[in-house]
């Protein structure tokens, strides 16, 4: 079946450093989403991106290479409050009648002062 792999599994940064999180997919990418989860918190959608588009939201940028079945999340100027788990998900859009998300296992990010 379809699979999503994320790397790295965990990452430690000094505050102010940049990060790049990667996802690879086992099939051709249609569109994808990035989620964030604070420890003990709920999953929150960060960015949604069709396979050909780069999406930006503040210090976050999502880019995808559909021909390589790969996408990246760039976090610039990391802050302590960025700490948490980042999950990517391949979006199998059912054309308006529901979206099936295939999740990766996540990257645990820890930003130190």
């Amino acid at each position: 079946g379809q699979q999503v792999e994320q790397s790295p599994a965990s990452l430690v940064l000094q505050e102010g450093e940049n990060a790049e999180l990667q996802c690879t997919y086992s099939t051709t990418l249609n569109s994808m989403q990035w989620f964030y989860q604070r420890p003990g918190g709920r999953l929150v959608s960060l960015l949604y991106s069709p396979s050909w588009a780069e999406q930006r939201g503040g210090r976050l940028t999502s880019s995808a290479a559909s021909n390589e079945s790969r996408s990246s999340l760039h976090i610039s100027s990391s802050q302590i409050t960025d700490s948490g788990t980042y999950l990517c998900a391949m979006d199998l859009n059912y054309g308006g009648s529901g979206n099936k998300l295939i999740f990766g296992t996540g990257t645990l990010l820890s930003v130190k002062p």
Partner: protein
Amino acid sequence: DTTVKQNPRYKLARVGKPVNLICSQTMNHDTMYWYQKKPNQAPKLLLFYYDKILNREADTFEKFQSSRPNNSFCSLYIGSAGLEYSAMYLCASSNSYEQYFGPGTRLTVL
């Protein structure tokens, strides 16, 4: 209000007993989803309701039931809990691509 609520937050069940988990949203979303998340594993879609139509994943088809009595509520039902059902169960809702997640129900089967 963009909150998805789940009850209970923690559930303890005995092997062989039924389990019913509840999810609610007041955003008038047409689609509601249930995911299962185990430690160190990715969240896995179990089923979803698009309006009144239930879609269940093939590999969990017989293990989980669901009902959606109205637009706001959706339940996840396990007829006979086994140890392998211990997990976090996440509910989400959406009207488009963006899914809003609840805090989850942690189910422990003993």
